[in-house]
């Protein structure tokens, strides 16, 4: 079930990380594709350890990792100059206003002072904190703190953004807004993003592909479309009204009704989807039924995830 991507932004080979006797990552290998990638796994699976190792916070026992062509172990500073981290925990620099904090983060990343200040204004505006830029970060709400963590990670124009639980502690509206920001960054700003989260809906809304880590090992990798596809290409059909005669017409054509509930049905046929679709419309025309919706059936990411984990 592991499909290696064509173009990798990060590459991890046989990585083992141990904390004393506990092995957090065991012989872990993965090629992280460009775009927005979800890092999924149950609590304690090793997601955060992987991120920390990629940033050089944790020294691996064995294996190698490269990001954007730079070795994590040998060129840590170069890696961190091209990467932005939005950590899971609250983090800020005490006593600083938002603008000072973000400009300082830019300078720490290597930006000239004037550029850092200019960019801090831009990135705070982009993150929706423009009006609060002169407020002390300590006085920010949880949602604002999440945004400023994103702003300090973005300020120096990283090519890869590591987001660790970016929607932690946010209310539904704040969560939605954060997800929109992440989508915009990955789709329109030419920034590759790795989102580590255990909230599958967040991943589904923002990412094109996922990496599933379970007990420190790579369990699955691929695009969300591939992962949620159901074998045999079943089709979901929605009629205007329930129609037993249409169901009979469908069965007569050799199509299997996998499930049917009121005006909805999931159908499966050996023929290609285009042929099945044509037969569904023929059956509807024959009995005078009206097809309201038709789509290739998929499972949710949650279903796919649970299948992998268990």
């Amino acid at each position, binding site marked *: 079930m592991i499909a290696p991507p064509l173009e990798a932004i990060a590459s991890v080979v046989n990585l083992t990380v141990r904390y004393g006797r506990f092995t957090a990552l065991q012989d872990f290998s993965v090629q992280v594709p460009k775009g927005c990638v979800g890092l999924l796994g149950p609590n304690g699976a090793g997601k955060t350890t992987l991120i920390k190792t990629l940033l050089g916070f944790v020294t691996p026992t064995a294996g190698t990792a490269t990001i954007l062509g730079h070795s994590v172990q040998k060129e840590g*500073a170069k890696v*961190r100059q091209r990467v*932005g981290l939005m950590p899971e925990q609250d*983090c*800020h620099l005490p006593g600083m206003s938002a603008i000072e904090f973000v400009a300082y983060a830019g*300078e720490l990343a*290597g930006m000239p002072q004037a550029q850092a200040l200019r*960019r801090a204004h831009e*990135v705070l*505006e982009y993150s929706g904190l423009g009006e609060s830029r002169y407020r002390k970060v300590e006085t920010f709400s949880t949602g604002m703190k999440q945004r400023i963590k994103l702003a300090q990670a973005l300020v120096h124009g990283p090519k890869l953004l590591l987001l660790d639980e970016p929607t932690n502690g946010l209310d539904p509206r704040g969560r939605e807004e954060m997800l929109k920001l992440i989508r915009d960054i990955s789709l329109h700003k030419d920034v590759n993003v790795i989102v580590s989260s255990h909230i599958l809906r967040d991943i589904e809304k923002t990412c094109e592909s996922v990496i599933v880590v379970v007990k420190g090992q790579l369990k699955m990798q691929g695009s969300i479309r591939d992962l949620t596809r159901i074998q045999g290409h079943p089709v979901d059909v929605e009629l205007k009204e329930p129609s037993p005669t249409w169901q009979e017409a469908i069965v007569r054509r050799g199509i299997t009704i996998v499930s049917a509930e009121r005006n909805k049905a999931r159908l499966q046929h050996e023929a290609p989807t285009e042929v099945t679709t044509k037969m569904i419309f023929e059956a509807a025309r024959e009995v005078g039924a009206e097809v309201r919706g038709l789509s290739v059936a998929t499972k949710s990411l949650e279903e796919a995830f649970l299948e992998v984990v268990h």
Partner: protein
Amino acid sequence: MASPIADLSYRSYDGPLNPPSARWWVIAKVHTLKAFRNRFYWLFVGLSGWYYLVILTVIFIMQMVSSNATDLASGAGVTGSSEIVRQIQFIDRFLWKNQFLHGFSFGQLTYLIIALLVGAGAVANDNRANALLVYLSKPCTKWDYVVGKFFGVWIPLVTAMAVPSLVFFLYGMMSYRQHGFALYAGAFPAVLGAMAMAAALHTSILLGISSLMKQGRIAGILYGALYMITNIFTVMILVFWLQPVPDARRDLGSSVVVDRNPLLQPAFYSSIDGLNIGMAKSLLNVDGGNAFGMPPDPLTVVPAPNGFAVFWIMSAICAFWLYIFWRRVRAVEVVN
């Protein structure tokens, strides 16, 4: 619902980035500027120079008195007027380099307050706010963080110590050259050296303690307590030192041989305050003495310690606390 993205024209940064070296200076600069923007910092800098202000006022008044007395004596044709003038013009017998020592010694308490103001929360507050994640996720190393924080506290502290002495030095060079001030011009760089060491000692211990805490005020209280306890010890030793010594003559200005317990002198310098003053005495090559220019009393003055010994002791203490600080710099807590 309005878009959460406030600026839709935003573009990712593609401008210049400095190579990932010497990040410590960014940290030191920001910390230093933060201290310089604090009005209490400048208040205590002003207060730390109180001795210089007093001594300059005393000199000014004495000069006025001396000038008037000279005019009166010569006008009245008093016999032996030159002797009277010599007695009054005590300024010519001033030990100028002693004034730098006294200025530095009497400022110790304010230096402590400035050190607490600038350094107590330097690392503790970062620990509380998880700021290390911000620093270490950027191209900053542990080395950059430690060195940057050190200089971020050391520069404001050494500035605070140096400014009053510099003002006194410049004023002295302009006004008292003819009274022997220029002969002791080397005292200023010497006292600067002592200040650099004293600031390093304050900074290292404070950062070490601060790195162990999550609240700046707790770190400040602990350092203040450590400073005061060791200082009380020094004062107790001084009390022993000042005990009457049998068969010792108390002629001012003469050398007196006194048999004292050999441990008393090193014990006197066994405090943060004592080490700083000991280093200053060694570098200025003076034993100290009474303030306001009077000749020293050899029975009450504790002689300067061995400069090399003090230097190495201070360096060892700095290294110990900086090592503790270094060990505490971790982006993540790893539980084995």
